[in-house]
C-alpha cells in the first residue's frame, strides 16, 4: 500500500513542480509591470515616496500632445492589426488550399517571422525613402520628375511606413498562429461541406472561418498589443509630432530628473490599461474555448 500512496502523492505534486519556473518568471514580469504602474501613481519606495497621488495621470491626460500620441498609437496599431488579420486569413487560407508542404511554410511564414523588425525597417527604407528604389522606378516611368517628390517613408505623419513594417511581420504571424488549426478544421469539416455541395468559398466563409474564430481573435489581440507597445519601429520611422506612446514614455523616462519618471510611468500605465482590456478579451476567448472542449468530450 505504501509505495502506491507515495506514487499518488508524487503524481499530485508533479504539475506544480512543472509550472514553478514559469510562474516565477511570469511573476517577475507582472512585478515589473505593476511596479511601473505604481510609480505612475507617485509610489517610489526607493526614493522614499510612498504616498499615492493621481497628479501625474491628471497632468499627463491634460497635455495635448499626449492625447495626440494616444490617438496616433491607436490609429497605427488598429490599422495595422486589422489589415494583418485580413492578410493573415488570406495567407493561411492559401496555404491550406495548396496544402503547403513544410518547405513552403518555411519560406512564406518562417522567414518573415524570424526577421527582426529593425531589419524590416532597413528593407523598407531602402525601398521607399525619398531616394529609394521605388521612387527611382517611378522616375524612370515618368510618374515623378525629381528626387524628393515621393513622400518618404521616414517621418511621414500618415505612418504608412510603420504600418507597412508591421504588415510585413504580422501577416505571416497571424498565419503562423492560425494555419495549423485552419488546416485541421478544413480537412475535417470544410471538405465535408464541399462534399455535400457547398462551393469552396461558401464552405470557407460559413464553416472553416467561424470555427477558427478563437485562434483569429487571439492572433489579432497579440498583434494589436505588440504594435501598440513597441518602441523600435515608431522611433525609427515616426514623425517628430505626434510621437507614438512608447517613444514619448521613453523620452520622459530618460529625463535626468528622476521624479520625471512618474510621468513616464503614467504614460506606461495608460498603455498597460489598454493592453489589459486586450488581455481580458483574450481571457474570455480562452474560457469559451475551454467550455467548447468540455462539450466536445
Amino acid at each position, binding site marked *: 500500500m505504501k509505495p502506491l500512496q507515495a506514487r499518488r502523492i508524487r503524481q499530485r505534486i508533479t504539475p506544480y513542480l512543472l509550472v514553478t519556473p514559469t*510562474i516565477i518568471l511570469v511573476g517577475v514580469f507582472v512585478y*515589473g509591470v505593476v511596479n511601473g504602474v505604481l510609480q505612475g501613481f507617485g509610489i517610489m519606495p526607493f526614493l522614499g515616496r510612498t504616498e499615492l497621488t493621481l497628479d501625474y495621470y491628471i497632468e499627463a491626460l491634460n497635455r495635448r500632445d499626449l492625447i495626440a500620441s494616444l490617438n496616433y498609437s491607436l490609429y497605427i496599431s488598429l490599422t495595422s492589426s486589422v489589415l494583418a488579420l485580413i492578410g493573415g486569413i488570406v495567407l493561411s*487560407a*492559401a496555404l491550406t488550399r495548396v496544402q503547403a508542404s513544410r518547405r513552403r511554410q518555411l519560406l512564406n511564414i518562417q522567414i518573415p517571422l*524570424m526577421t*527582426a523588425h529593425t531589419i524590416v525597417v532597413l528593407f523598407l527604407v531602402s525601398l521607399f525613402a525619398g531616394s529609394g528604389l521605388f521612387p527611382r522606378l517611378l522616375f524612370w516611368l515618368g510618374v515623378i520628375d525629381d528626387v524628393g517628390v515621393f513622400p518618404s517613408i521616414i517621418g511621414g505623419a500618415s505612418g504608412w511606413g510603420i504600418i507597412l513594417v508591421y504588415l510585413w511581420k504580422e501577416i505571416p504571424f497571424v498565419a503562423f498562429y492560425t494555419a495549423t488549426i485552419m488546416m485541421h478544421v478544413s480537412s475535417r469539416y470544410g471538405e465535408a461541406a464541399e462534399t455535400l455541395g457547398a462551393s469552396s468559398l461558401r464552405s470557407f466563409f460559413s464553416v472553416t472561418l467561424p470555427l477558427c474564430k478563437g485562434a483569429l481573435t487571439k492572433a489579432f489581440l497579440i498583434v494589436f498589443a505588440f504594435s*501598440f507597445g513597441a518602441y523600435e519601429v515608431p522611433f525609427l520611422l515616426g514623425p517628430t509630432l505626434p510621437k507614438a506612446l512608447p517613444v514619448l514614455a521613453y523620452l520622459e523616462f530618460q529625463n535626468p530628473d528622476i521624479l520625471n519618471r512618474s510621468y513616464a510611468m503614467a504614460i506606461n500605465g495608460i498603455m498597460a490599461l489598454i493592453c489589459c482590456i486586450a488581455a481580458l478579451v483574450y481571457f474570455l476567448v*480562452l474560457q469559451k474555448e475551454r467550455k467548447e472542449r468540455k462539450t466536445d468530450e
Partner: protein
Amino acid sequence: MNEGKQIAEDSNSPQRGHAAHKQLLKKHRRSHAWVSGFFLIVHLLCILMPLGIIVTWSFTASWPWPELLPQEFSSRGLVELFSPRQGLGLVLGQSVGIALGTALLSTVIATCAARALAFHDFFGKELFRFASVLPFLIPSTVFAMGIQVLFIRAGLANTVLGVILAHTIVSLPYAIAIMGEVTIAAGMRLEQQARVLGASPLRTCLHVQVPQLLPGILSAASMVYIISFSQYFLTLLIGGGAVKTLATVMFPFLTSGDRTIASAYGLVFLLATLVVFFLFELLLKRFANREVSYFEG
C-alpha cells in the same frame, strides 16, 4: 452540361455517386488552387526581394539617384564593420551567447509548462494558461521600464545574466505555444508503454519523450534564439549599454545616411539568424525523423 447529366445518372447508385462527387470536388479544388498558388508566389516575392536589396546595398560603393542599378561595387561596408576598431567580433559572440542561453532556458521551462498543461489537472490551471501568455499581451516596453529598478537592486542590471533572464521572460509565450502543440500531438501513449514495460522515468525521458518532442524543442529553440537576437529595447534598458549586442549596436545606423554600413550590419544580422535557423532545421531532419520513425514504425 454533359458532365452534370452524367453525374446525375451516376448518382443512381450510391457508391458511384460518391465517387463522382469526389471527382467533382477534386476538379473544383484544382480550379481554385492556382489563385492560392499565385498569391503565395507574390507573397514570397515580397519576402525575398527586400532580402536581395540588403545584400546588394551592403556591397555597393555608389548608387546615385536615379540609377536603378548600383554603379560601383566594393566590400567597404563589411571591411569597415569587421575592422578591429569596431570590436564587432566580440559583440557578435556576445549576441549569439545570450541568444543561445535564452533559447536553452526558455525551451526547458516551456517544455515543463506545456507538459503540465497537456497532461495534468492542477489548481489554477486556467489562470496559469492565461498568465503564461501575459508577456504576449502587455508591451515589453512597460515591463522593461518598470523592472529596471528591481534589476539594479538585484545586481542583474548591466549583466549578461540579467539580459538573458529578461529575454527569457518575453520569449516564454512563444516557446509555450510551440511546445504545447507538439506535446499534445505526441500524447502519452508511447511513454506509458515504456513505463509499463519497466523503463525507469529517466530512461523514458531520454529515450521516449525527448526524441518524440525533439521537432518541437528544436523549433521552439530556434524561435526563441531569433527573438532574443532581435531584442533592442529590453537589451538597452537591462544591459544599460554595458551589454552590447548586434541589435543595439546596429540600431543608430539603421536610418543614418550611410546605407552601405547599415545594410552591411543588416546582412551580418540576417546571416547570424539564418545560419542558426538552418542549423536547427538540419538537426531536425537528422535526428527527429530517425528517432521518431523508429518508435512509430
